[in-house]
């Protein structure tokens, strides 16, 4: 029974690692411009497509798969960052100052736009990795009698490494200081001589990078398809809210908490096909009990 419990906990932590990577992007952007970027799940998907494009364009067997996987992950991150930069530049910047509702609707528009663009590729047919890369990613590592997909062992270190990198940037660099200043008060930051447009743009790039890498981590265990960012995006958004949207440690904690809760519900006997219900239930619970989230700060309304 303990063995069972640990297995489900592990599955939850792996899923949580992905959620936390995506949730960080939501929280960064929300923290700085109060925008819920619903297109964030699509940055995840674009990253996965870019990774797959590199894989399928490279001649088979040209480089060792052990080298190819990290390269594909980097390309995915770069593509996620790139599309985030483009989206911010083309869609969000022109309407900045037109209110939060306009920005939110634009985000939904960007999301649909990217999904449909992706559907042009191979008519939206799901793409899967084959050959040596697939063999490595889908290789089973036995823990006791249980086979676990080897790629899942990469989730936690990859997620921790990227999260630490992000913390370093936010809390130890000039860019991070500018980001935090912009997040506290955009106008004051601008008056202090911070180029807030550039800071916002870089915030999107950072979030997009994390989402892109997460996209290929998931694609290596499953498939690449246009709607693949939708549920992870939604769940990561919930994770960000649960952890306290705007808070970076909150997103990490929220992500892992959500993944674990989803699988504990399965462990408790709910059919796996219904595990997403757990995230929505958790969201409602948090919104009722502690609307600012686990690590969020309560906003006082000034009259």
């Amino acid at each position: 029974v303990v063995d069972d419990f640990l297995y489900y906990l592990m599955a939850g932590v792996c899923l949580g690692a992905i959620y936390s990577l995506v949730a960080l992007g939501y929280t960064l952007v929300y923290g700085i411009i109060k925008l819920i970027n619903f297109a964030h799940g699509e940055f995840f998907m674009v990253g996965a497509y870019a990774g797959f494009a590199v894989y399928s364009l490279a001649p088979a067997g040209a480089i060792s798969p052990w080298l190819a996987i990290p390269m594909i992950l980097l390309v995915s991150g770069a593509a996620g960052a790139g599309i985030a930069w483009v989206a911010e530049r083309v869609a969000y910047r022109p309407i900045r100052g037109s209110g939060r509702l306009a920005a939110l609707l634009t985000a939904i528009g960007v999301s649909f736009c990217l999904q449909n663009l992706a559907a042009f590729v191979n008519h939206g047919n799901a793409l899967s990795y084959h050959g040596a890369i697939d063999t490595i990613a889908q290789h089973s590592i036995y823990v006791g009698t249980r086979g676990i997909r080897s790629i899942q062992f990469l989730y936690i270190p990859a997620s921790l490494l990227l999260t630490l990198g992000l913390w370093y940037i936010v809390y130890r660099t000039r860019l991070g200081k500018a980001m935090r200043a912009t997040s506290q008060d955009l106008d004051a930051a601008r008056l202090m001589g911070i180029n807030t447009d550039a800071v916002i743009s870089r915030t999107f790039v950072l979030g997009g990078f994390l989402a892109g890498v997460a996209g290929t981590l998931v694609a290596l265990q499953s498939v690449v398809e246009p709607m693949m960012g939708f549920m992870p995006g939604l769940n990561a958004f919930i994770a960000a809210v649960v952890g306290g949207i705007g808070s970076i440690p909150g997103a990490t904690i929220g992500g892992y908490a959500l993944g674990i809760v989803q699988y504990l519900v399965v462990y408790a006997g709910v059919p796996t096909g219904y595990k997403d219900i757990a995230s929505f239930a958790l969201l409602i619970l948090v919104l009722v009990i502690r609307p600012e989230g686990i690590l969020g700060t309560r906003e006082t309304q000034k009259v």
Partner: protein
Amino acid sequence: MRNLAVGLAAALGVAFSCAGCKSKDANEVKVGVSLPLSGALVSYGKDVMAGVRLRVDQINASGGIKGRKIALTVEDNRGDPTDTRSSIKKLTEVDGVVAIIGPITSTSALAAKMDADRAGVPLITPTATNDKVTENTRWVFRVIFTDSFQGGKVATYVCQTMGLKKAATLIDNNSDYSKGLAASFAKEFAALGGAVTASESYQQKDTDFGTQMDKIIKSGAEIIFVPGYPPEVPQIIKQAKVSGFKGLLCGGDGWDNAAVIDNAGDKIVDCVFSAPFYVEDNRPIVKEFVQAIQASSKKLPGSFEALGYDSVSLVAEAVGKAGTDRSAVAKALHELKDVEGVTGKITMGPKGDAVRPAFIKKVVRKGDGFAAKYVTTMNP
């Protein structure tokens, strides 16, 4: 402003539809097609479309239906029930088709049924297997067999021929096809003395099936029945290998497609499923069909191409007998007998379901890849 926009759109619609009916050859027989030509099920949609096109070209090349050529109007329904409903509306109201071929999935067919009923247009689904698709309507027809039939036959083959007595089912929660087929498999398997040791579920777009597989392995199942579609089915087969499942997997007609067989890794070898068509069939009509599909699609046809091809044959036969009045075509479809098709001689049963055998197929290695091979025939 909104009213203006709606009015404008309506006016344009009318203008286009009339322009359509006047400029085209009034003698043509208009047939509508509603298939997933994009999205997760595009592989099914394209294959059915290849069969439909081939048969239409053959009929038109040999002079059409009593001298009248078939004109196809093709709509992409993306495999989505809502889009399918709008495509049926458009095909009947704007294009004025005589009959519609499609859709693919049971969930979409159940949604389209309402519109076919309301509009009074014969809807010929090549592939939707859920029993309810043809119930309580005179307008819906199916070329493939039903879930209660194929589920029972797979259960019989697994239990009696393979001698396996412990099975698990793994069901797609969002699919009427998956739920209906799993239920009929489980019912027959239990009736034959087997035990269903676990019944697990997943959602479309899920990417990890580890916990389901874990529960199934622990239940002691020797075979897992996975009635579903790509991209989940091939991932589940891969998962079975990763998790260390020692037995085999089996499925329904949805497996008879490259999107499943080519993407599932080597665990698919020896897996079995039911299908309404097999390429090894010796009849001349099948040989000609296989050659033609190979020439156009550069691969061997599966059930989806074959069902698309036969759907057109049925429509052509009915229109040949009854003309282009929709109600008369529906009546003629109900009375079809022994129409020679690539999936066999087709006779319409009382509900609008084609009466036909199921073929059990098994996946074998073929060169670097995999292919489905005919094993046996299961008669009704």
